[in-house]
């Protein structure tokens, strides 16, 4: 479903984010409150086997790409489009950093 290769615009976008929010890179995997909502369905570790897709093995860059695609509608899901629409670029970066392998 999701390619391993990141598109150039997203890579550039990440570099820009890192430039403007260097504290995001410095921080030791902070536990963002927003992640608490994600983990209720997706789990952080040990999410149990069922229809809800596991995010355990996705990398940070994959998660940024997926969440952005949900947000802009390139990827059509069920509730994820509605949830990602409420996330800022910074939220997406923080969540991806936290959940990414």
């Amino acid at each position, binding site marked *: 479903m999701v390619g391993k290769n990141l598109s150039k615009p997203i890579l550039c976008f990440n570099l820009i984010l890192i430039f403007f929010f260097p504290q995001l890179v410095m921080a030791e995997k902070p*536990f*963002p*409150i*927003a992640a*608490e*909502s*994600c*983990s*209720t*369905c*997706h*789990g952080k570790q*040990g*999410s*149990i086997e*069922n*229809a*809800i897709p596991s995010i355990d093995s996705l990398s940070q860059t994959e998660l940024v790409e997926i969440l952005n695609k949900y947000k802009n509608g390139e990827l059509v899901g*069920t*509730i994820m489009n*509605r*949830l990602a*629409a*409420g*996330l800022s670029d910074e*939220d997406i970066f923080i969540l991806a950093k936290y959940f990414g392998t």
Partner: protein
Amino acid sequence: MTNLTNVKINRRKLFGFSASLIAAKNIAYANISSNKSEVVIVGGGFGGVSAARALNRIAPQTNITLILDSHEFITCPFSNAVIAGLKELKEITFKYDGLKNLGLNIIVDPVKEIEPQSKFVKLKSGENIYYDRLIISPGISFKWEAFVNVNSEIADNFPHAWKAGNQTLLLRNQIFSMRQGGTIIIAPPDNPFRCPPGPYERASLIAHYLKYNNPKAKILIVDAKNKFSKQSLFMSAWDELYPGMIEFIPFSDHAGIKEIDVENKKISTYFEDFHADVINLIPPQRAADLALKSGLTGTGDWCEIDCLTFESKVFKNIHILGDAAIVGDMPKSGFSASTQGKACAHAINDILNDKVPESALLMNTCYSLVGPEYGISVAGVYRSDKQNQNRLSSVPGAGGTSEAGKNPTLRHFEADFARGWYANLTNEMFG
């Protein structure tokens, strides 16, 4: 349970109490000899359990005591599936062993009273528990006084089934033993109440049961509202799955319940009388009795809180979450209570570390089953609104309900996700 023989009195804390409290027997402290902060959590549902586990995970410097009413928790989510015979009660019943294994102090002893000045929780057994910070997630109570000449005993005949357990089974038994071609009334309350889409999911799943077991039966929804959660999705699904079976009677068509006649199984409204074989009367609601009698509701029905810390606007050091509280735009749902419990744990951890809690971003997702393979959902994203005292306000452009239109694949997916949502949520709490 706190072992009273091992209680050591901490002088620093002791001198702060009134003489009467010192005289009270059974003053208990959990591990009081340490300098750890005492966080006491009252409530064994979505809010309380999620708060306890999150705090245990992120704030190892606290002593956590979880106070429960019962040795097990029966979830309201999926209780409509029990009513429709799609699940058994034991499948939605959870024990607290997972939390005991984490080393939390767990006390099963209902709370009698909260003493906000001296910072004690008084239990029914007579034991008193001291707190530095108290979290309560006590749920709802019913406003029986909203009906004329009615008290809680009416639920023995007209079950609310709005707290899962015996009431769930009573309603199921009444439906299962109803005569062929009978009528079921579901009477939902006005907003705000626990689980806004719940009555309509209930109507749907009962219709599913009737379709195969009592196909001439009817469901009347005599509603205290003119519109309801996910209404267009529900109504088009009813046309598709249960044509002619469910009738929604909005408030404007009956003007409210005037009288309830238990003997004749009749609900009289201001415009019309409704007779039924089974009546599911879901009363208007307010914060649970504990919140009310502790003064935490102020002059209203619900608890006002600071949305960043969940701290009561009435009493310091008491944090309230879940259905009992007004949490910005968030609906009264199990998922909301769970994310609030976790956010509250973060806020308390910050406060105990002399930090100001950061802004919060919370989400809610609620699935409803219209049929076993037909799911719909509503979602919301809520962010602290800096312009409005950090109120948790809906993020514009986000959230909303499932896409409308005939889309069996989507409905099937969402039914599977509803089951996955429940499995993960309850696993996170009780696993």
